[in-house]
């Protein structure tokens, strides 16, 4: 990172131990990858300084997808923020919903019903699977293995179909609400989900057979994009990328939220912190998510799906339609937004790529006074120049993929 401030064009040549190892005196080339580039997720621009194919300097320029998420949220009601959180990590939107809802609930001191907690876990884990499927298959794509991509998409879309049945939209789920979730599960949904999970596991198995032990993949991913455990922590890595470096930190275990403490699942941990470990980490977590979802269905009991605190939750529709009390509460909440008690809170969940935190400040009004997002991808993207230093250009792409930077959340 010390190099960040240097001018890219005058990086001194790496000193060599013997004259034979001395780098061939060559002119360095500056190549712009992005902001529009097939492998740049979203619209990140990487300025890469190449010596031949070797990266000798790299700078990232982000902001092409910046939509002013925080500013926008400061000007809508607490509830209206939900659709915007959908668009943070758009592959796994419900986890963003849940994280944000938990931040608001922390401010309100609101307890949500157990069923809602289970539903949040189920949907979160399903979306985690979507995210991981996207990642592993996209890694295949970016290494050039198209077939893997399609297999992964097939599995992901099946899961998305189930989520559509639940929340009414494929991608922009907008599912969680302050105090609960928006809908209960449809008839027979659980059984359908389990069948979908079977299919997804089948696809994951095929991806595994196509990729994992293939020497080309191992060569391309093992030992590339390495970040040590200490560096990963120092950079603030979380989630699979941190665990791939050997640090078994998982928010679901370290500070269990929702009902994660009642669920039996394990945390896979890698050793090398390279692309291969990060890829394997996702493959393992697919299996763990599968376990969690199945357990949730076994444990979940019927009940309310949203808190009944009238200050924060819209009254049930019958009351709105039929009684003045309901109508007035309904109007107050929608006109002015939920009046979240003044204060500040930081809530964090284990999103697909790591700790997703929401720092919410309320001034007691109907809109967030401040809403900060700790997007997990931020830290990993930040570390990319260091990770890539001295590696080859071709490694940049899979590394970019396995750290799984999602433009939506990083650029907010």
């Amino acid at each position, binding site marked *: 990172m010390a190099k960040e401030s240097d001018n890219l064009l005058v990086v001194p040549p790496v000193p060599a131990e013997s004259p034979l190892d001395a780098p061939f005196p060559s002119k360095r080339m500056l190549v712009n990858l992005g902001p529009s580039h097939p492998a740049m997720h979203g619209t990140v621009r990487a300025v890469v300084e190449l010596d031949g194919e070797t990266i000798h300097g790299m700078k990232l320029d982000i902001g092409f997808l*910046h939509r002013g998420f925080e500013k926008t949220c400061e000007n809508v009601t607490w509830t209206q923020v939900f659709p915007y959180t959908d668009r943070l990590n758009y592959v796994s939107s419900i986890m963003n919903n849940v994280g944000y809802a938990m931040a608001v609930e922390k401010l309100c001191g609101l307890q949500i019903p157990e069923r809602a907690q289970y539903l949040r876990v189920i949907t979160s884990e399903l979306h985690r699977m979507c995210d991981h499927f996207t990642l592993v298959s996209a890694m295949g794509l970016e290494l050039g293995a198209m077939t893997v991509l399609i297999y992964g998409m097939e599995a992901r879309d099946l899961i998305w179909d189930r989520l559509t049945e639940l929340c009414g939209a494929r991608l922009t789920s907008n599912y969680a609400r302050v105090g609960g979730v928006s809908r209960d599960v449809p008839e027979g949904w659980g059984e359908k989900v389990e069948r979908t999970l079977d299919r997804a596991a089948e696809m994951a198995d095929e991806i595994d057979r196509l990729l994992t032990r293939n020497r080309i993949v191992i060569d391309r991913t093992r030992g590339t994009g390495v970040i040590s455990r200490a560096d990963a922590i120092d950079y603030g890595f979380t989630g699979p990328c941190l665990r791939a470096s050997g640090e078994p930190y998982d928010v679901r275990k370290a500070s269990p939220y929702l009902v994660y403490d009642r669920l039996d699942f394990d945390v896979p941990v890698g050793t090398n912190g390279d692309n291969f470990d990060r890829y394997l980490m996702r493959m393992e977590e697919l299996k763990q998510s599968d376990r969690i979802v199945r357990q949730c269905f076994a444990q979940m009991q019927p009940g309310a799906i949203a808190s009944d605190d009238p200050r924060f939750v819209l009254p049930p529709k019958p009351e709105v339609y039929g009684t003045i009390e309901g109508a007035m509460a309904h109007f107050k909440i929608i006109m002015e937004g939920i009046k979240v008690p003044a204060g500040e809170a930081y809530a964090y969940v284990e999103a697909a790529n790591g700790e997703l935190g929401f720092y919410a400040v309320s001034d007691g009004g109907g809109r967030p006074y401040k809403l900060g997002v700790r997007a997990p991808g931020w830290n990993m993207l930040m570390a990319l120049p260091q990770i890539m230093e001295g590696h080859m250009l071709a490694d940049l792409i899979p590394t970019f993929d396995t750290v799984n930077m999602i433009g939506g959340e990083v650029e907010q």
Partner: protein
Amino acid sequence: MSQAALQKLKERFPDAVTETYAGKGGDDVALVKKEAIAEVCRFLKEDPEMLFDMAPYITAADYMGSEPRFDVVYQMYSTKKNHRIRLRVGVPESDPVLASVTPIWKGANWYERYCWDMYGIRFEGHPDPRRLYMYEEFVGHPLRKDYSLRGRQPLVPERTVDEPFRGPGPTGG
């Protein structure tokens, strides 16, 4: 959760830590004077009882109208001890400068750039004090409460760019 850490911090820096309290939902918060932030952070990272080794999430908030106007917030986590702490540093509008903690945690880099970009809080000793999201010619700091919602940025005239990364902006020069 980590009231002990909070206590220790308070004992170690009786002057710099002006106040500690338990925030909503049990978050532990310490208000720290802005002059001491680097020192406090280094202590928090290195003290064997603290070990807040993971790079903090740094953000800011603009409490326009109150003094100090800005509030820089550090969310810290320790992987070794599994505890968390939040530092809040008041930053006055007249002198929005803080010591950078990037030398302590590499991961603080972009968050500090973000605070500069969005709130105009400068971090002294930051290795790469550029804006993060906005372009260098951007006028103002968008997340300040007095930044107009419906304003328009001036157009940047087309010109030759010698330094392809920084662009022709004021700090790119």
